[in-house]
């Protein structure tokens, strides 16, 4: 515990800027992963426990694509598309079979996928820690905002997440696709009776959620080191995010992700050993006081 350090940071503009930018990039990554998780839950009614593995896969695909193509933007797109494709395969061949089954079997299928993916990554990319390094395009001197240091790549990450959030909001609330998806989430039987192919809606939502996780992995690749099993901690954190924001609510995921991101970055100064505890405390409080989450409309799932 070091409240004095936290106080000193909060009185210095440069420290506030630096910590806020760190918090925002953590929040951006969490938002992308949590948005996919919450969307899949909202529409399909299952929690994809293997979502963290998709994030991991995205990071590794981006790493390889970057080494081959030498273009970061292109490799991020490849990672998103590749993981999206992988998600469709996973959904069609495995997950689909347990939608109607007991939770026990859903859990086991995801458990198996996590185990297999972690080992597959070990076989393909090796078990040791890897890092992509900062892509050439972003190797510019950092920005100084009120004397706070903000790397250019951070700005890019935050902008990318913001754009994705806006697009998602627009698609989900203002387009026909969004209407169809919301209808399938609300009443799948009625939706299919009306002649819409729910099978494809499910596969599409799963692919989109997976692509978001893959993209998050690609965005994390330059700033985080990679290792098999890296997906699990972000899975737990994005779950906390969705509980705080409200399961099934994308805007809730955004609020929750930013909250957790900022708690993480400022908490690491003020109470480094208790950051994890704070997140869980926040989650427990939400579950006791408002079980549907900050922005969740529906009663507790």
């Amino acid at each position, binding site marked *: 515990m070091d409240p004095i350090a936290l106080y000193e940071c909060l009185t210095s503009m440069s420290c506030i800027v630096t910590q806020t930018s760190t918090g925002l990039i953590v929040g951006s990554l969490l938002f992308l992963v949590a948005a996919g998780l919450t969307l899949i839950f909202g529409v399909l009614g*299952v*929690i994809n*426990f293997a979502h963290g593995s998709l994030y991991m896969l995205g990071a590794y695909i981006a790493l390889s694509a970057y080494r081959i193509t030498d273009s970061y933007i292109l490799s991020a797109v490849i990672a998103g598309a590749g993981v999206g494709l992988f998600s469709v395969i996973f959904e069609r061949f*495995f997950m689909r*079979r*347990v939608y109607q*089954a*007991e*939770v*026990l*079997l*859903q*859990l*086991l*299928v995801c*458990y*198996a*996928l*996590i*185990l*297999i993916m*972690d*080992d*597959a990554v*070990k*076989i393909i990319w090796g078990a040791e820690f890897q890092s992509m390094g900062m892509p050439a395009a972003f190797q510019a001197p950092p920005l100084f905002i009120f004397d706070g240091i903000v790397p250019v790549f951070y700005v890019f990450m935050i902008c990318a997440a913001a754009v994705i959030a806006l697009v998602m909001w627009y698609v989900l609330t203002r387009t026909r696709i969004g209407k169809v998806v919301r209808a399938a989430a609300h009443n799948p039987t009625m939706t299919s009776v009306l002649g819409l192919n729910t099978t494809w809606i499910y596969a599409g939502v799963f692919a989109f959620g997976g692509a978001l996780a893959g993209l998050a992995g690609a965005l994390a690749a330059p700033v985080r080191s990679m290792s098999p099993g890296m997906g*699990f*901690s972000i899975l*737990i954190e994005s*779950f*906390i995010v969705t*509980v705080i924001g409200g*399961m099934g609510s994308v805007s809730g995921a955004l609020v929750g992700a930013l909250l957790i991101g900022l708690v993480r970055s400022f908490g690491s100064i003020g109470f480094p*050993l208790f950051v*994890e*505890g704070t997140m*869980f405390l926040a*989650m*427990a409080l939400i*579950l*006791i006081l408002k*079980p549907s989450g900050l922005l969740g409309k529906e009663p*507790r*799932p």
Partner: protein
Amino acid sequence: MNNGFKKELLIGLAALALLAALPLLSPGRVTLDFVIRLAALGVFATSLNILVGYGGMVSFGHAMFFGGGAYTFGLLMQRTDVSIPVALLGAIVFCSMLALVVGMICVKLKEIYFSFLTLAFQMLIHSVIITWTALTGGDQGLMGGIPRRPFWGGINVADPNTLYWFCVIIGVVSLLVMRYILQSPFGYTLRMVRDNADRARFLGIDVWRIRLYAFILAGAFASIGGSLMALFVSGAYPEFSYWTMSGEAVFMIMMGGINVFLGPIIGAGLLNIFNDIITRNTEYHGLALGVIVLVFALGFKRGITDFVGQLFNTLTKKRVQP
């Protein structure tokens, strides 16, 4: 004690007699070690089945009690000079308290939400174990071995045969107690809450309380499994409370079958054997285990005891007409 339970008591005694004869039939350490492991994992898996099979609550974080029990037991043995039964009791008390706190938050939640929340709390416990290096030794685990002090006059578990006996007796007694509780009115109330919570509520049953009691019971018995494991391997490791341990437990009970009391034990034995074979043949443990899990979860969809029960029903179809 009702008459029905006499049968179970006899089965328990028969199992003890069989296990007593085992060292004579197969004197090698391998068999005995296997049985000790089975006792620890079997109690752990059966305790999870109190929640999954009898309570309809699929916990994905049950390893927090296995690890919690192992660490509490290990620390009590290392840092204080209490005897083994007292340390075991300490582990049970600690995990019951932990289960009370976690359960109060979790048991209200529905199915998949409950699974994820228990998983999240387990990862909290795991990260506490990793970070609190001064107490737990961090990712190295509890170093220095767990002393096997003699207790109650002459019971000396430092002797391998006595250790075998101790673990087997604790294991069988734990199973009998769990069986007794599950066959009691409480056990049947729990089954009713699983099948139809609304109906139970109408009958005046406090559903939340019944679920919470089941959660605490499961946590307490899981800590016995963890303590036996800690005593056997003479240490406690963060992996005991890692999510893979919970996953293995879920797989054990699914593979054995959740509808029969002894199903999880069979599952624990099978997984034990699988793990041995996999470790001996390949370094890609996760890949091999993952494929086996997929075969069971997507191919068979039921546990082994379910198949046996089905076979039995088919053979005696004329008499057992539903």
